[in-house]
């Protein structure tokens, strides 16, 4: 994690610049997809901080995504909040729910942690259905146009939407790079690698993991809120198990414990599903097969393998 500082930052800033340029090269359809990928990548970056760096294998991150989505969407729906305050509420919602989840679930570890987080996420999903008159349940609700404006820009139109998604992505990416290169990032990795040793170096594993999970929740909340505001839809389907599995797949594909892995994984998985949908209705099968191949031949993911073999300076 030491050394290679300048190279790493240049690489990350180059990616952000390339994404900025992409909007001029892509069709509106593909640019919108890329905006969606960037938002999902923010979600996956948060997942990666918990799973890839801290070793917390959660199956409940859909709860955190939905928390951000509803914390942004409901005030917009009920009280007509504009995009800025709604987005901040979404980030806070994700962080708060993650902290509450952590206080309870981090009393467990390993497989128990997976099960407990899964159960809480299911409880959250069922709660959204139960309060369907407010949450819209399975059908969800559309976010009103008035709540999708930020400083006069209409975020439901292509260019502002793309730029808003890119801004959130860029901030999330730089923040996660800075975090994993900081002393606290090293502490997170220590939890993943050898919790008992970390304890005997004076770290409190519970508080470190709680902080990591909460940061992860802030990312998930930001992604959920961004999704609601940029794509105008809020629904309980985002609280289903599928959205807990997706960020894990993105991270595993791109490379767990690499800062660029979540984006690469989200991009490739999105493309894979697009391509598979064109060939067969059984596109989930192709995704599944791709994952089996991945786990068998590149268990560290794409960037994890590249880092190991060729570019040890990668973060």
């Amino acid at each position, binding site marked *: *994690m*030491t*050394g290679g500082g300048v190279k790493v930052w240049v690489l990350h800033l180059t990616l952000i610049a390339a994404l900025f340029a992409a909007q001029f090269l892509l069709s509106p359809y593909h640019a919108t997809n890329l905006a969606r990928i960037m938002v999902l990548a923010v979600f996956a970056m948060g997942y990666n901080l918990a799973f890839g760096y801290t070793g917390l294998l959660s199956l409940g991150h859909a709860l955190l995504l939905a928390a951000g989505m509803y914390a942004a969407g409901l005030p917009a729906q009920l009280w007509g909040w504009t995009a800025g305050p709604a987005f901040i509420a979404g980030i806070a919602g994700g962080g708060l729910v993650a902290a509450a989840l952590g206080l309870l679930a981090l009393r467990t570890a390993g497989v128990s942690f997976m099960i407990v987080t899964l159960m809480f996420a299911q409880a959250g999903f069922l709660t959204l259905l139960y309060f369907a008159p407010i949450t819209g349940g399975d059908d969800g609700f559309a976010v009103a146009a008035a709540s999708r404006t930020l400083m006069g820009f209409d975020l439901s139109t292509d260019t502002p939407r793309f730029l808003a998604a890119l801004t959130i992505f860029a901030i999330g990416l730089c923040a996660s790079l800075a975090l994993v290169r900081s*002393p606290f990032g*090293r*502490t997170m*990795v*220590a939890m993943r*690698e*050898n919790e*008992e*040793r*970390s*304890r*005997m*170096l*004076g*770290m*409190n*594993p519970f508080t470190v993991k709680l902080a990591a999970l909460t940061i992860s929740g802030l990312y998930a909340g930001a992604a959920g809120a961004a999704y609601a505001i940029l794509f105008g839809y809020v629904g309980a389907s985002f609280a289903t198990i599928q959205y807990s599995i997706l960020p894990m797949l993105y991270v595993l594909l791109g490379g767990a414990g690499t800062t660029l892995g979540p984006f690469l994984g989200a991009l490739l998985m999105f493309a894979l599903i697009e391509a598979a949908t064109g060939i067969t209705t059984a596109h989930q099968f192709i995704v599944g097969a791709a994952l089996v191949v991945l786990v068998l031949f590149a268990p560290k993911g794409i960037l994890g393998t590249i880092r190991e073999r060729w570019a040890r300076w990668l973060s």
Partner: protein
Amino acid sequence: MAVLIETRGLTRHFGGLRAVDGVDFALQPGEIHGLIGPNGAGKTTFVSLLSGRLPAQSGTILLGGEDITRLPAHARVRKGIAYTFQITSIFPRLTVFDNVALAVQSQGSAELAARTRAALARVGLQGLEEQEAQTLSYGHQRLLELAMGLALNPKLLILDEPTQGLAASEIEGFKTLVRSLVPQTTVLLIEHNMEVVMDLATRITVLTFGRVLATGTPAEVRANPAVQEAYLGA
């Protein structure tokens, strides 16, 4: 001289096994104290109770007069009790630098790199900073473990079988290093290698069946008939 750490009636049983059974023990600041005893005498259990890796069943532990019996392990580390593992416990996939930096940064992150390099130089691992820890030789891994303990800047450093698996030449260097730590740091040394203990320790405590059999200078312990019968077998 005030006592650094003291236990009173410290007890830990595992089912019917009395691993540590009412141990009264005191460490003077600045000494190198050897803890010896046959296999299964309760040495590792005893230091695990001191460091907080295991909770005590009964009895008390006082650090500088303060009762720390119920403190969790990480809080005891912050109070100055460092433990180095019998079975080397490093972060195998992190670099040597990161391994030690983790210990250094728990003392504050100012001049992290310089302090980390200094801790590595102290055990003679300078120049290996960027190596992945698992690629080090066993002897170097033991030294890395020791560097992590030292980097915590402890009042009490507990070394659990530190020379196990070291070559004779490495043991000499190790002894010099441990001597250089006192009197700033107090050392509690569990060791099977009698030559090392007799040479390094200012006082020795002998445990058998979870109880203190004898305490004294190396000469006294060596001359103690009960110790000879129970342990030295000579």
